């Protein structure tokens, strides 16, 4: 029998349904992998008992003939989702020890679908980062190594780096991620897995620790496109508790998967051809174009003229929203309280927030506070929101002549831990290809497409029209089938 932890979500689901193995066996196998992978630091909290309990229920349900869509599938939960009775930290000191008495809508949907939880996955603190180096609970290490014989620890990407690392290392078949400016797609690309950020509003934000409300979207990360479709079907859906939730039926994405792209047009944005970019990235992109043509699609060049301004607009809007969203962490109702001798209320706030937030979080709160402050609001924030309108308009115009857009996910492969930490701007540039779709709220996914010269995975990004996750998944599938990406990190942990 194949090792259970090598199975995909679909294979586990179907195998369990067919009686090839029990859910408890699956849970135990993954629990063992989780327990044996401390070196990756992918989990903040491990919850083997949760996974086992769900597995026992799944086995009972199979016996009773009451199987649920994801019975028997254990998953990882990014520690940005509030989980009832299980510590939820957003990888911050601020929320260390915080145990919510409520469950996020998305995680609840997954439990209702029969999933079990292997643990809470590490991430960049408050989802702010692109390398998983800002977690209070330590860096997540990518399972991948360069093929140069060196042993440099690599970044799994961020902010969903615990999710990407755990999936790539077979610690879980799938996991939740959240994407504000690339936090699902970029870590997926860095670790050779798939991930999709759906249209803004598809997944409820209720119970997800907020970073930037107008950008945050939950989505699945898994090993292949089908698994992403299956997971997304069980995460998405209208939620009356989220005023920005889309009141639309969830399509049956898995059933409609098709890699036949005849009659489809793929747009290639010329502005994404950056000067001086890694030639491996360009080569992968060209190969991707060929694959989509091979799948029957027509390929056209498109223009997204404001691409250059997406990242700076993002670095005004996201910190502005974050500076306000994170004001609730004040040491009054939950989380850390730092009360120096004789301190008053306002001193307590300042001390608590100085102690509870890491440097990157502080940096973004400071930027956000500044751009919203009196006299600067229009020059920064209003201008950025106008540019955002232009960026969305660019996509709208581009989609008049194409169905999906193909681009690289990130401008480089995974970098070494510590390599970019000294320069925040260099770190921010990682999301240059990911951020435009976030600003426009569009569905976008990353699929692994190639290895670079150093033997590290590279991802291709497909961006779709609003609500057209199906088009994105189908194009992703066409690439997946043709790229034949089977590489995996050799176990060293």
């Amino acid at each position, binding site marked *: 029998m194949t090792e259970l932890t090598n199975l995909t979500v679909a294979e586990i689901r179907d195998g369990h349904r067919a009686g090839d193995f029990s859910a408890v066996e699956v849970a135990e196998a993954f629990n063992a992998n989780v327990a044996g992978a401390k070196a990756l630091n992918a989990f903040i909290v491990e919850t083997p008992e949760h996974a086992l309990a769900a597995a026992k229920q799944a086995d009972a349900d199979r016996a009773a003939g009451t199987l649920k869509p994801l019975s028997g599938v254990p998953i990882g939960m990014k520690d940005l989702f509030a989980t009832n009775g299980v510590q939820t930290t957003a990888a911050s000191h601020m929320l260390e020890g*915080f*145990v919510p*008495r*409520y469950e996020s809508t998305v995680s609840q949907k997954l439990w209702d679908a029969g999933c079990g939880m292997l643990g809470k996955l590490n991430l960049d603190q408050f989802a702010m980062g692109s390398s998983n180096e800002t977690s209070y609970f330590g860096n997540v290490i990518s399972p991948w190594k360069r093929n140069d014989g060196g042993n440099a620890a690599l970044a799994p990407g961020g902010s969903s780096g615990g999710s990407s690392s755990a999936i790539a290392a077979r610690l879980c078949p799938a996991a939740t991620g959240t994407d504000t400016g690339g936090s699902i797609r970029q870590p997926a690309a860095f670790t050779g897995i798939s991930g999709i950020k759906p*249209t803004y509003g598809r997944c409820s934000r*209720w119970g997800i620790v907020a970073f930037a409300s*107008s*950008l945050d979207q939950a989505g699945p990360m898994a090993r292949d496109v089908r698994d992403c479709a299956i997971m997304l079907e069980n995460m998405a859906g209208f939620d*009356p*508790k989220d*005023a*920005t939730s889309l009141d639309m039926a969830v399509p049956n994405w898995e059933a409609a998967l098709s890699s036949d792209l005849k009659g489809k047009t793929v747009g290639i944005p010329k502005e994404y051809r950056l000067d001086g970019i890694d030639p491996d990235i360009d080569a992968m992109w060209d190969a991707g174009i060929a694959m989509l043509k091979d799948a029957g699609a027509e390929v056209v060049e498109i223009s997204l003229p*404001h691409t250059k*301004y997406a990242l*700076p*607009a993002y*670095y*005004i809007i996201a910190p502005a929203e974050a500076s306000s969203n994170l*004001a609730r962490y*004040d040491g*009054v*109702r*939950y*989380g*850390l*309280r730092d009360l120096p001798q004789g*301190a008053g*209320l*306002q*001193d*307590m706030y*300042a*001390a608590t*927030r*100085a102690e509870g*937030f890491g440097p990157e979080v502080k*940096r973004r*709160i*400071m*930027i956000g*506070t*500044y*751009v919203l*402050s009196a006299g*600067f609001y229009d*020059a*920064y924030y209003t*201008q*950025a929101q*106008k*540019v*955002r*309108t*232009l960026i*969305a308009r660019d996509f709208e115009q581009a989609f008049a002549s194409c169905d999906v857009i193909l681009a690289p996910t990130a401008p480089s492969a995974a970098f070494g831990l510590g390599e970019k930490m000294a320069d*925040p*701007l260099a770190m921010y540039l990682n999301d240059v290809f990911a951020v435009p779709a976030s*600003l426009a*709220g569009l569905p976008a996914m990353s699929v692994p497409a190639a290895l670079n010269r150093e033997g590290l995975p590279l991802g291709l990004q497909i961006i779709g029209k*609003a609500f057209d996750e199906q088009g994105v998944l189908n194009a992703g599938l066409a690439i997946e089938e043709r790229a034949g990406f089977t590489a995996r990190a050799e176990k060293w942990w």
Partner: protein
Amino acid sequence: MAIDQATVRKIASLARIAISDAEAAAMEGELNGILGWVEQLGEVDVTGVEPMTAVIPNTLRLRDDVVDADPLTGGNRRDDVLANAPAPQHGFFGVPKVIE
């Protein structure tokens, strides 16, 4: 618009983040780097462009005026609300004494 250390301290105070002089000095450079970079947005001609209000066409839904219809958004759960409080006091949240 370069910011100085006094401005850094003012922002930190607005954001209620205590910072040392050394941190203020370090942040001055970082923030100026980032702000200088985002200021390229000023180049974009936005004449007649409205700032974005909703990223995906969607209208604001309104709720019915019903108490505790959903326990997740209703009241009557003081224990849950106070469960993680650093200084719960007889059903209240305790904070250092405030002089108004």
